[in-house]
């Protein structure tokens, strides 16, 4: 299979404009003849559904939640980047592009990233016009902050709830289209498979999560905006319902899966506190602007944090990275925390935590100033841990948070299956091996509002006059039967173990061997362990109830079954990539100082995997990456 990214010709600054001109249009009267299915109602899906409907396409939008307003985009706290340069501090489209390519450790596609930086400015305009209440200065203009190690202030925010406010903007735009009938919304509906015939996506199969009804849907194009797969680790900051089923089923039907090993571990999360824990909670990384991270120097330290004198503390980020200190990028901060805990210096439950201390900031700025910046985060921390961060340092530890890998897409966001698109976190293209803070919201909305609505028109224009495949045709019946069979199989195992207990064990394998640091031996053993556990899953699982009712165990069982397959691919990818890049840290490949060591000669490519039967090795396809505009350098934050 030849991977053609379809990157337009010309200088990078002109590619998108040129492409927009060269793409074919669908005349307004014809748009209503086309129907598009959008799966997911987060920033990428909701924005795409609303924008396509505004253009005149008929849209059906599906989400597993009870309302389109609840997708996990809602939990993003910190902000959204845009190259507005409102602060006059030297920002530009080029600088945002440059920072994003560098931050991704040179494993993203330059043309996509440049386009992302270009449309970032339109996103802010759009959201403000929708009524998103971004933070403002006293003069009434928009406020910005610097975020995630950026040296310019380009992050727009709405208190600690930026994702919520952006999503509600999208939800409102979507609601307006639902009211006109241009979008039909199907909440509590989960996509369980995609129907592919003659290499083209023809529709999907869904399950009504209340009645259990399995239904086929036929359309002219299908958009997967179903988010990432961090829940493969069981414990992550993702919502409990977040799942990879849509993208994994698409992968099994022919869509290549790119860079699955690029998974981001966020440095500032509340540490695990018990074996019953169901998820991890992120504390915004903006806390690192004022908090100082440290561990005791003595592994046998038993005093309370506040009783340990300054000279017996190791402010390890400030020591190792004097230029960036506590503000080093996420991958570096996370690895450093793991390293000190591995040395036995960690604090709290199981020695898996480091202190994030505001005592100095409170002394310097006063408690009211800290409260006005972080008050809601401090309250949240206290609710969960029972400790008051104004008085004792927070304890934090890294947690799986975001996945840069996803379905391979070309410049038009189309997967290797014709007519099947992937947007937002579900695709792979913009963040390379590491995503910068405040860039996920930007990418989700860029894809949904400003990229997909154009590129999908070009595809549809080439299929004018073709009728969608009837839902009673053979391809639909065949996939429906497979979906039914799979659900029945899960229900009829009648073993001894619950979905959660097996998922938890899978998560531990992935976290141990394919988490923050990886090595060949560990990855090989993980692949074996995953296969063994997968066999147990399909022979010893216990799912209560039937398929024709609201059955949360059955919902989980299907999702975790797919995670079992995805986990294996993630390990293959990590094993193949004999280098360290961004979040992917191979212990065999590091500099003399212990930092990540890339191998551009051999690995400056996207690893796009073709599915085979489970248990057999997947087939690798490569998209070579080149960087004519951002010269390759070793990242340094010293």
């Amino acid at each position, binding site marked *: 299979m030849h991977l053609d990214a379809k990157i337009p010709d010309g200088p990078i600054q002109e590619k998108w404009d040129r492409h927009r001109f060269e793409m074919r249009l669908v005349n307004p009267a014809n748009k209503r003849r086309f129907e598009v299915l959008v799966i997911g109602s987060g920033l990428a899906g909701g924005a795409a559904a609303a924008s396509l409907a505004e253009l005149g396409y008929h849209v059906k939008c599906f989400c597993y939640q009870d309302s389109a307003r609840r997708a996990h985009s809602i939990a993003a706290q910190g902000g959204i980047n845009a190259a507005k340069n409102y602060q006059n501090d030297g920002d530009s489209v080029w600088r945002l592009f440059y920072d994003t390519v560098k931050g991704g450790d040179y494993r993203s596609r330059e043309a996509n990233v440049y386009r992302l930086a270009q449309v970032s400015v339109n996103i802010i305009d759009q959201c403000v*016009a929708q009524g998103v209440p971004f933070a403002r200065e006293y003069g009434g203009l928009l406020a910005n902050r610097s975020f995630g190690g950026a040296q310019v202030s380009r992050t727009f925010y709405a208190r600690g709830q930026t994702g919520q406010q952006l999503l509600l903007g999208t939800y409102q735009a979507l609601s307006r289209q639902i009211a006109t009938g241009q979008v039909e919304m199907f909440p509590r509906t989960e996509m369980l498979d995609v129907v592919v015939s003659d290499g083209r996506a023809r529709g999907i199969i869904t399950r009504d999560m209340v009645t259990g009804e399995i239904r086929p849907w036929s359309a002219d194009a299908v958009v997967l905006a179903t988010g990432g797969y961090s829940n493969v680790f069981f414990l992550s*900051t993702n919502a409990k319902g977040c799942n990879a089923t849509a993208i994994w089923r698409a992968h099994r039907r022919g869509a290549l899966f790119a860079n699955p090993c690029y998974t981001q571990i966020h440095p500032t999360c509340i540490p695990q506190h018990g074996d*019953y824990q169901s998820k991890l909670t992120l504390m915004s990384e903006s806390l690192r602007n004022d908090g100082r991270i440290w561990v005791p120097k003595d592994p046998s330290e038993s005093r309370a944090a506040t009783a340990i004198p300054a000279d017996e503390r190791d402010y390890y980020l400030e020591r190792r990275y004097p230029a960036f200190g506590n503000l080093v990028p996420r991958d570096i901060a996370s690895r450093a925390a793991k390293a000190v805990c591995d040395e036995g210096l960690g604090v709290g439950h199981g020695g898996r935590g480091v202190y994030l201390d505001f005592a100095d900031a409170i002394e310097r700025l006063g408690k009211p100033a800290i409260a006005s910046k972080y008050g809601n985060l401090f309250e949240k921390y206290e609710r969960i841990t029972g400790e008051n961060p104004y008085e004792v340092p927070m304890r934090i530890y890294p947690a799986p948070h975001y996945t840069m890998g996803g379905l391979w897409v070309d410049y038009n966001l189309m997967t290797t299956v014709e007519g099947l698109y992937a947007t937002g976190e579900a695709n792979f293209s913009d963040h390379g091996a590491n995503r910068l803070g405040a860039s996920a919201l930007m990418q989700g909305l860029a894809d949904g509002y400003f990229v997909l609505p154009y590129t999908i028109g070009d595809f549809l224009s080439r299929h004018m006059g073709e009728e969608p495949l009837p839902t009673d045709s053979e391809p639909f019946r065949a996939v429906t039967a497979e979906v039914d069979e799979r659900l029945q199989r899960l229900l009829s195992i009648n073993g001894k173990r619950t979905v959660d207990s097996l998922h938890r064990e899978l998560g531990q394998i992935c976290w141990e061997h394919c988490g923050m640091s990886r090595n060949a031996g560990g990855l090989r053993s993980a692949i074996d362990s995953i296969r063994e556990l997968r066999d147990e899953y399909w022979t010893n699982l216990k799912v209560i*109830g039937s398929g024709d009712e609201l059955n949360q165990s059955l919902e989980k069982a299907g999702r975790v079954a797919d995670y079992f397959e995805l986990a294996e691919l993630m390990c293959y990818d990590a094993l193949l990539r004999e280098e360290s890049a961004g979040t992917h840290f191979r212990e065999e490949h590091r500099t003399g100082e212990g930092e990540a060591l890339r191998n551009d000669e051999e690995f400056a490519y996207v690893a796009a995997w073709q599915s085979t039967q489970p248990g057999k090795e997947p087939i690798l396809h490569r998209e070579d990456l080149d960087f004519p505009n951002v010269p390759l350098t070793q990242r340094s934050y010293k």
Partner: protein
Amino acid sequence: MRLELRIWRQPRRDADGDFATYHVDASPDMSFLEMLDVLNETLTEAGDDPVAFEHDCREGICGSCSLMINGRAHGPEPGTATCQLHMRKFRDGDVIRIEPWRSAAFPVLKDLVVDRSDFDKIIQAGGYISINTGSAPDANLIPVPKRSADLAMDAAECIGCGACVAQCPNGAAQLFTAAKVSHLALLPQGQAERDQRVLRMVAEMERAFGSCTNYGECEVVCPKGISIEFIARMNRDYLKASLRAGSGRPKGSG
């Protein structure tokens, strides 16, 4: 800590329900939902149907979780959604009664899961600014006084969980509706549709939910602390819009 739980069990929307009693061992560091997870693991292993309850982000922001705990929406801790409630707020030996949201407008689908789709219909009736993608002017073209922006954000923090309705003796959705009406009315971008928005949203609200008689219980249980002052603000807006519309109805509504 050992707890006795009395949980509402109902197999389907149109079926009868009743309370069932369970005993569970919990740790004070668990979240309330993790305590229910532990119960469900035990039930599943014993071959019994686990308790269905709504949850997703477990960070207090998605608005999915929706439990009446000892008669109070989201339980005893102020300003806290069910998923952020922790067991240290309870004591060994406590009896905890867990019910779904109480409201005729939120029918039970199974156990503790209810249908809140009428909230979506209120937003669809006008809870938006009509702006197509691509037609926005520069974001800094219209300054918004910081106080207005901050107040709009106070209203916009609503997570749409439905606690306000569940706690209200009338089952009214005034706080939810007022939060969206106020959020948009406080911003210059929301002015063009201000009248028709409040008229349409209130009409839809009245269709699906009960009427407000100022009990004020909504504000007390709101996990985001949305102020009841927004209801007064909506009522003022509604009155003005009605007077301007003459007939008291939006144009074209018959």
